[in-house]
């Protein structure tokens, strides 16, 4: 029988069965609109508020600083566009990095068309933002720094605390896209001087279609979605109660298992990395060797192209990705891999494997073997190989 090894947990995760269990009553039993005054809606109202508390605690935040959204992309769009709008009179300069997710990059590009100036910081060869470049990029009209917590492709964790301090010292709003980091590594918004933080449920075994934006008390950004008075009148739309409950349950679960899970994933990750580096020639590990998300592995295999690699891995039952899920199908190589200095043709041959705690060492061995075999096969038909 064909194996099935899911190694694309950075794209999305399995919703944990206990998360689904927690959600179920809110579909058919306690389905009341939390904004309603009648008793019947009190269960849904309480569920929203309890799960908001759970999530706030996970960040060291206050419950009223958590605003539920439909996911990471909405949170990123909201944070950046609303900050631009709110602080426009102070200035029109935004600092971000070259390795952000498209939800940040394309939003910044949108703002550029509206007359904002954006500095896209370089990163070093491991994919970390250079703090001195950040300091140099700051101008009197800089209103926002938005740097992701950890990268979705190569897993590198950014020096968020230092970035937060720089932002804080310069009195500049600091937003971080923590969609990949939240639930995987400990985060505290106060320690890192984070003013806004985006997260998404489906990246940590929660449901798809739910996310949140943390907004520090005092940050005066307005609504992105206007309408009813939900979320303290800052985000309109009937609350996705089952989604919120599922997200809360997933966070509870992620926080309580974090340490153990990370230890297990790091072991698997390092095993896979070492095995592939040892057995496949012309291969490169992308991202920092140790300061990376516990579950992220990203290789570039020279002389082969990513999609072919993916399809052949798939035929062996291995689900992986090449660059981010959102950009596959596109012809451009990953902007992240280019930013860490890879030439185009090498960037094209990248493979991202993102694990979960259910994977085994034996699976890692299988994957390493498969990669070796497939890369060999593709190289044999590559016109670049002998060159």
């Amino acid at each position: 029988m064909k194996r099935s090894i899911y190694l694309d947990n950075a794209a999305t995760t399995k919703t944990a069965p206990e998360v689904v269990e927690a959600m179920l009553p809110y579909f058919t039993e306690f389905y009341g609109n939390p904004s309603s005054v009648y008793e019947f809606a009190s269960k849904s109202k309480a569920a929203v508020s309890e799960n908001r508390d759970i999530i706030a605690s996970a960040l060291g935040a206050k419950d009223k600083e958590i605003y539920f959204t439909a996911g990471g992309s909405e949170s990123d769009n909201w944070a950046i566009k609303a900050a631009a709008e709110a602080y426009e009179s102070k200035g029109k300069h935004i600092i971000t990095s070259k390795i952000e997710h498209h939800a940040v990059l394309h939003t910044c590009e949108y703002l550029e068309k509206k007359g904002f100036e954006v500095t896209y910081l370089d990163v070093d060869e491991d994919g970390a933002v250079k703090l001195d470049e950040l300091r140099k990029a700051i101008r009197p009209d800089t209103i926002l720094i938005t740097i992701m917590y950890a990268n979705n492709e190569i897993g590198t964790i950014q020096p968020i605390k230092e970035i937060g301090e720089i932002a804080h010292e310069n009195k500049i709003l600091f937003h971080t896209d923590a969609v990949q980091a939240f639930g995987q590594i400990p985060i505290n918004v106060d320690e890192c001087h984070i003013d806004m933080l985006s997260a998404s449920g489906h990246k940590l075994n929660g449901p798809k279609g739910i996310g949140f934006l943390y907004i520090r008390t005092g940050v005066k950004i307005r609504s992105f979605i206007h309408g009813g008075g939900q979320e303290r009148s800052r985000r309109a739309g009937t609350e996705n109660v089952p989604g919120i409950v599922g997200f809360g349950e997933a966070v509870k679960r992620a926080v309580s298992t974090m340490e153990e899970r990370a230890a297990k994933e790091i072991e698997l990750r390092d095993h896979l990395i070492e095995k592939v580096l040892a057995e496949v020639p012309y291969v490169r590990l992308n991202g920092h060797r140790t300061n990376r998300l516990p579950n992220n592995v990203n290789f570039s295999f020279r002389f082969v192209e990513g999609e072919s690699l993916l399809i052949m891995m798939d035929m062996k039952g291995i689900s992986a990705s090449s660059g981010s899920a959102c950009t596959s199908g596109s012809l451009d190589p990953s902007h992240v891999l280019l930013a860490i200095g890879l030439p185009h043709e090498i960037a094209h041959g990248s493979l991202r494997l993102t694990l979960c705690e259910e994977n085994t060492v034996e699976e890692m061995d299988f994957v390493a073997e498969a990669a070796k075999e497939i890369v060999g096969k593709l190289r044999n038909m590559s016109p670049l190989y002998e060159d």
Partner: protein
Amino acid sequence: MYTEKVMDHFQNPRNVGEIENASGVGTVGNAKCGDIMRIYLDIDDNGIIQDVKFKTFGCGAAVATSSMATELVKGKSVQEALNITNKAVMEALDGLPPVKVHCSLLAEEAIHAALWDYAEKNGLVIEGLEKPKSDIHEDEEAPEEEY
């Protein structure tokens, strides 16, 4: 995403390899864009393609169209080979997803480039054959709706 025929030609590509002292060799594409295709033709004195081989760095569609294109030109005359369009290759593969249509152009171009090389080497003029572009992506427009 791909048809069974595409998957078959991708998994078991026909005519992978090189031909030493080939009558014509054509390389198109651009490693920067993630696709390079090289076609080797062995053409006999009657202008019949006796053998053909390819090497491709590219996506599944690129590999499959290379494979199918080599199958289609094998045994054909130069003029027949010239008339094999990317549409013919796609049809023989039961179609490609819209975003992958351009990959099939690569195969057509590679054959043309190899034929051009053959013509140049032999001082021939093949009617209807133009000098190949170095990068077939050059004059393609990004489809508006993708962005």
